[in-house]
């Protein structure tokens, strides 16, 4: 059993420093005590069977929030198109004034108080105990926000402590639409524990496109938790681009609560060195005529490991649902590993659900074809890997971000 004495001390002094109401403090204490009952997850816990976090979390038996000395976000790191920025510098939120009717971006105080139930997920409980910053995005009914919101999570060189935790809240009201792009920029090579809990509510007929980029972090341990609740006729497109990330678990739960709601959750991972990345995904079809799609691809170089645990759950109420899930991995080195647990749990008979999972090496026939057209082996492989990952991007609905992700991959469909 790990020694959590230091974390207890950390928590006590954190609570002391909080200027919060009694309810909030109580919830944090409950969450923390819940966390303490079993501590960080172990590899033998079924829910964490293939998780890299079981190994890496134990590096953080003492956590410290940083009061970073960094105040400025380098202007050149901003995206070069018109957008509304939300900037976290070393975990501290900086908001700019937003002037658009129907759009509210504020510090998330509502959600900090809104969550009252502690869960069974130890890392989520840990996050709920500590998280002190976060954004709240709310779109009023019948509002289409055409400019995307870009969330920058920036880690500067002047950040000396080891822990960042955020709780975010996204509420899209009836018949509204928005696109949110969230990216992590690591300017420091330190070992951090970064956790987040994002709650999403999509009201009737609303649409959210949420795109995430997480790349180039050689040392940190990351846990992202997202829960989305979808009302009737709403649509969620959730996509995560991961590249060269040391240790990460992306956990997403989608509840399709309203008829004709639709969720697409997809992602690509390009992993190097000892990268270890896990995607856990649960889609709950709680109502009839709901539809979901999961599409994950991994390209595994060097000694990297990817794990995919995806589940489609169909309630006995949820007739006429359609659930689809596909996970595919390319093992590009002798030391690369892929674990997958694609799960279906179905309690209604009039449904169409399927999943597929495959892993293996690059197809030799395809390599031969490319080489027979004069392309050398290295380039042919590179082309195949990019093409393999590009398939997921190609299915995204937003043309602007499609292009952005293609060029991130060095694979541009337009510019030949």
């Amino acid at each position, binding site marked *: 059993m790990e020694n959590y004495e230091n974390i207890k001390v950390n928590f006590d002094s954190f609570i002391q420093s909080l200027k919060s109401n009694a309810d909030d403090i109580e919830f944090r204490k409950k969450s923390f005590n819940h966390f303490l009952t079993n501590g960080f997850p172990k590899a033998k816990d*079924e829910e964490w*069977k293939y998780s890299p976090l079981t190994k890496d979390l134990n590096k953080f038996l003492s956590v410290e929030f940083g009061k970073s000395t960094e105040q400025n976000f380098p202007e050149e790191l901003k995206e070069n198109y018109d957008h509304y920025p939300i900037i976290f510098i070393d975990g501290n939120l900086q908001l700019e004034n937003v002037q658009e009717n129907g759009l509210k971006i504020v510090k998330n105080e509502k959600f900090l108080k809104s969550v009252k139930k502690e869960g069974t997920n130890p890392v989520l409980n840990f996050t709920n105990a500590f998280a002190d910053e976060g954004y709240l995005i709310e779109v009023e009914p019948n509002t289409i926000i055409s400019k995307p919101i870009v969330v920058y999570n920036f880690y500067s060189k002047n950040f000396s402590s080891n822990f960042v935790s955020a709780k975010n809240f996204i509420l899209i009201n009836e018949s509204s639409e928005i696109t949110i792009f969230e990216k992590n920029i690591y300017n420091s090579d330190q070992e951090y524990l970064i956790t987040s809990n994002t709650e999403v509510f999509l009201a009737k007929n609303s649409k959210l496109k949420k795109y995430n980029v997480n790349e180039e972090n050689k040392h940190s341990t990351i846990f992202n938790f997202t829960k989305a609740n979808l009302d009737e006729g709403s649509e969620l497109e959730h996509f995560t681009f991961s590249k060269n990330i040391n240790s990460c678990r992306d956990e997403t739960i989608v509840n399709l609560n309203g008829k004709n709601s639709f969720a697409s959750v997809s992602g690509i991972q390009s992993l190097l060195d000892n990268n270890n990345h896990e995607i856990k995904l649960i889609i709950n079809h709680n109502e009839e005529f709901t539809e979901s799609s999961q599409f994950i691809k991994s390209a595994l170089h060097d000694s990297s490991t990817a794990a995919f645990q995806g589940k489609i759950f169909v309630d*006995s109420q949820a*007739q006429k649902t359609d659930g689809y899930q596909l996970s595919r*991995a390319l*093992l*590009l*080195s*002798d030391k*690369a*590993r*892929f*674990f*997958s*647990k*694609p*799960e*279906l*749990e*179905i*309690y*209604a*008979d*009039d*449904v*169409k*659900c*399927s*999943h*597929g*999972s*495959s*892993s*293996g*090496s690059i197809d030799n026939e395809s390599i031969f074809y490319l080489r027979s057209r004069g392309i050398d082996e290295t380039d042919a492989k590179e082309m195949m890997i990019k093409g393999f990952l590009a398939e997921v991007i190609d299915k995204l609905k937003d043309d602007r971000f499609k292009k952005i992700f293609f060029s991130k991959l060095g694979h541009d469909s337009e510019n030949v």
Partner: protein
Amino acid sequence: MSNGQEFINNYNQGTEYAQGFVTDVETIDVPKGLSEEVVKFISKQKKEPKWMLEWRLKAFERLQSMKEPDWQKPKYPKIDYQDLYYYSAPKSLQDQPKSLDEIDPEIRKTYDKLGIPLLEQKRLSGIAVDAVFDSVSVATTFKEKLGEIGVIFCSISEATREHPELVKKYLGSVIPMSDHFFATLNSAVFTDGSFVYIPPGVRCPMELSTYFRINASNTGQFERTLIIADKGSYVSYLEGCTAPMRDENQLHAANVELVALDDAEIKYSTVQNWYPGDKDGKGGIYNFVTKRGACRGKNSKISWTQVETGSAITWKYPSCILQGDNSQGEFYSVAITNNYQKADTGTKMIHLGKNTRSKIISKGISAGHADNTYRGMVSIHPKATGAKNFTQCDSLLVGNKCGAHTIPYIENKNASSEIEHEATTSKIGEDQLFYCRQRGLNQEEAVSLIVNGFCKEVLQQLPMEFAVEAQKLVGISLEGSVG
């Protein structure tokens, strides 16, 4: 459907659990409960050599520190292992009848009724049968004939006495004695089951089969089967099982070990029709079975085919350890659950050798309030260069009070390997039903015809003699599920 017509002709013969009768025989029972004395008693009854008793006692000792697993989906009330009988045998079998004609007529009649005649003149042609009644083997047919070509086919009890060198070498070599709770329990108290040895280069000329019958009440059955296919040999083995209708749940905890050496092939088929409980979920067998095969030699092959229609709870994963280079494992399964039946079944394919291949075809059908889980693992180890797996898991739901759950674990640790997994869930199409009915089939006939079609890939794997039987079972098991 080539056998469709035949199936329909046979269809109306049995409308409930036809094997649910009780045979009235005088029995020898051990006192209730699990203890060292009981282990010794069983060993003594079996006239086992000393090393066998010591092995059992070691297992019993290890059991004391083990916990019953609880990760399975179907939950059941805690079993009181001290409230069970571990041995029950008809008194008439105590002195081991010298010829088949000496068998107690009551028991003979039982097997006649089950369609497994044991007498010479009525025997099934081409099939040798080992008949196990509660804790003892009643008879093994065609033993002498098989002996002429060196094939050993007898009860495991007999094998511990007659072929100790083989039993010592292989027993527990695939399922280690303390593998898990039920395997260890079985190792301590196993009663009977079959032993098969096929010598090098021999292609066993007939189907070997064991028919398991639970008769006594409150008694657990602890089958132990060991099959060894020596270099270049081939054997096809089939087991069937039934039990009387009783209100209490009964435990059948078997261990089955298969060993295939170089170039050998074992085909193991199961038609499991233990009493499933009544339509309200009362009674029925707990079928908690450990089945594992080792493809120890190069180019060896083990193929599991199972048709699981019975039992209140079926919990088993017939698996293959693919050690030899180029060895192959196959798993074909149909699991049907109706009413309150529950199944948690699947397979493990562990790829250790180079160019090993595995194939998994699983069809789960769930009706009534039943719950059907496929759980499986495909694991490709770092040295299994060129390994390949293909898995197809399909589930069919009839009604919205039942459940289907697919839980595959896929582990790939070799870049030159290929793993493909596919799974679907569907229902019986209205248009399919309409089409059949328009051609004159009634609703239930149509359903079983369609379900048989759904299972065809698996049913085809069964030896011909049993395929028809299995198709019939598929239909009967789903009776009353479509209104």
